[in-house]
């Protein structure tokens, strides 16, 4: 039952209209913005996929790059190079990262911990080209040649903060009872950490490592000045080495159509790598549930 005289009516006049417009506008604009961002991502994925998938044939994975402008070439050196360079990076970066994470979670306290954590955080803020510049100055220039090894070093530094932070966060979550139980059984500190605490956090650490690997696998800038890239399928880490991002970069700069397809195919592979890893990590950490 309603009458015209009840008080729950909108105010007369301009204010009511303005409030309604503001409200509707806010919803419309923010939805538009979010929609644009999501639409762009979808468009990019589909565009790169469409352009790239056509070049993803057997040649792509098994051959070296063809001479200027010819088709039929592939990115074998780049694939091998990426695997090797990322492997080197992980071999260095993962232990250093996990070690730092263990330090921050288990050993450090007070000011020292803050300082180390701050330093590690600073690493994430440094542009990746700078790491390329660093290793170029320290290794490439004195040795007078580019090398896959130098590339590995550059990427390893980039991996450290991601691995360290993931490790630290996951180790902190390991319940105290586990550590106390181990100590009560007479285990030494190193045993406790290595055999009890870290394995309990295993999946979180692996997640962190996966994320770090996916991230550096797509990096171009640090490799430009260290591994430099090559057309040949040698696997000598002391010589210039190709990597997928570098190959895409070089192909992008080339004016020839076949190289264009190679570029998109390579980009598609990189994108797939990143998307699959992100999904896998989210799924593994149950992150599709809404946050409270």
């Amino acid at each position, binding site marked *: *039952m*309603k*009458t015209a*005289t*009840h*008080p*729950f*009516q*909108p*105010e007369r006049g301009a*204010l009511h209209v303005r*409030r309604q417009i503001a409200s509707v506008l806010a919803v419309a604009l923010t939805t538009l913005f979010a929609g644009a961002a999501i639409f762009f991502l979808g468009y990019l994925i589909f565009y790169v996929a469409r352009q790239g998938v056509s070049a993803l044939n057997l040649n792509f994975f098994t051959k070296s790059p063809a001479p200027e402008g010819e088709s039929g070439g592939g990115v074998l050196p780049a694939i091998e190079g990426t695997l090797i360079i990322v492997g080197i990076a992980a071999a260095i970066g993962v232990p250093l990262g996990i070690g730092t994470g263990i330090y921050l979670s288990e050993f450090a306290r007070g000011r020292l911990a803050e300082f180390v954590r701050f330093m590690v955080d600073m690493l994430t803020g440094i542009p990746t080209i700078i790491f390329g510049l660093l290793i170029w100055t320290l290794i490439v220039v004195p040795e007078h040649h580019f090398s896959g090894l130098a590339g590995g070093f550059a990427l390893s530094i980039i991996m450290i903060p991601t691995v360290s932070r993931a490790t630290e966060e996951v180790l902190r979550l390991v319940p105290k009872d586990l550590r106390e139980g181990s100590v009560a059984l007479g285990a030494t500190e190193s045993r406790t950490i290595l055999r009890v605490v870290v394995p309990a956090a295993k999946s979180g650490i692996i997640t962190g490592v996966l994320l770090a690997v996916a991230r550096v696998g797509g990096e171009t800038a640090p490799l430009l000045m260290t591994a430099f890239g090559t057309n040949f399928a040698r696997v000598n880490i002391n010589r210039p080495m190709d990597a997928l991002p570098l190959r895409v970069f070089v192909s992008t700069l080339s004016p020839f159509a076949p190289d264009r397809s190679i570029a998109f195919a390579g980009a598609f592979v990189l994108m797939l790598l990143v998307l699959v890893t992100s999904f896998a990590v989210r799924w593994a950490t149950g992150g599709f549930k809404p946050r409270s």
Partner: protein
Amino acid sequence: MSIKVENLNAWYGKKQGLYDINLTIQPRSVTAMIGPSGCGKSTFVRCLNRMHEEVPNARVTGTVEVEGANIYDRSIRPMYVRRHIGMVFQQPNPLPSRSIFENVAIGARINGLAQGAELKELVERSLRGAALWDEVRDRLDAPSSALSGGQQQRLCIARAIAVEPKVLLMDEPCSALDPPSTLLIEELIAHLKERYTIVIVTHNMQQAARVADRTVFFLLGKLVEVAETGQLFSHPQQKETEDYITGRFG
């Protein structure tokens, strides 16, 4: 300004929180809702200004009639209901980054009630009405976070009455406050009822006995008993009421 509740049911998703509530609240009086935790008293009060709807998957059926209009009628928007049926919450919640003046003024600004000099007068009136004016008159520009808990709650009361509501709902307004502040606010309520219809939720029976004209006892989502406060506490009609009052549970 009387409130007539008929056949009110409320759900949180699948779970029902209120079962068929029927109640009439007298104008310009204080009505207290008492009952053990989870009995639905807060849910009920939140249905009176359509705040319950803000919970995801909330549902309400029944009618709540205020001044001849059912606030749940489809033609009425919640925001206009809430303007006239104000609410003070358990935790004082003034906007921390804003000044005392701004906090009181915000409702009036949003609803276009006053500007400039009129607004200043409105703020002063509201602060006086909340028994806070004397303590803050020379620091109206200070941030609200500079006030004590009891003062902040009075600030929230001032904010609520600044939009000139007909009804003031108070959801355990003193639970987070110390005894002196609680006493101050209880005294304030005694004054406020001259102008507003007040519905107060409290888990403290003594408080209900002190401030309320009528008291309602809720249990497990049902309205068990309502009576004039003195009557309810001295001669409860229902066994559950008597058990609760004498402390056998809750």
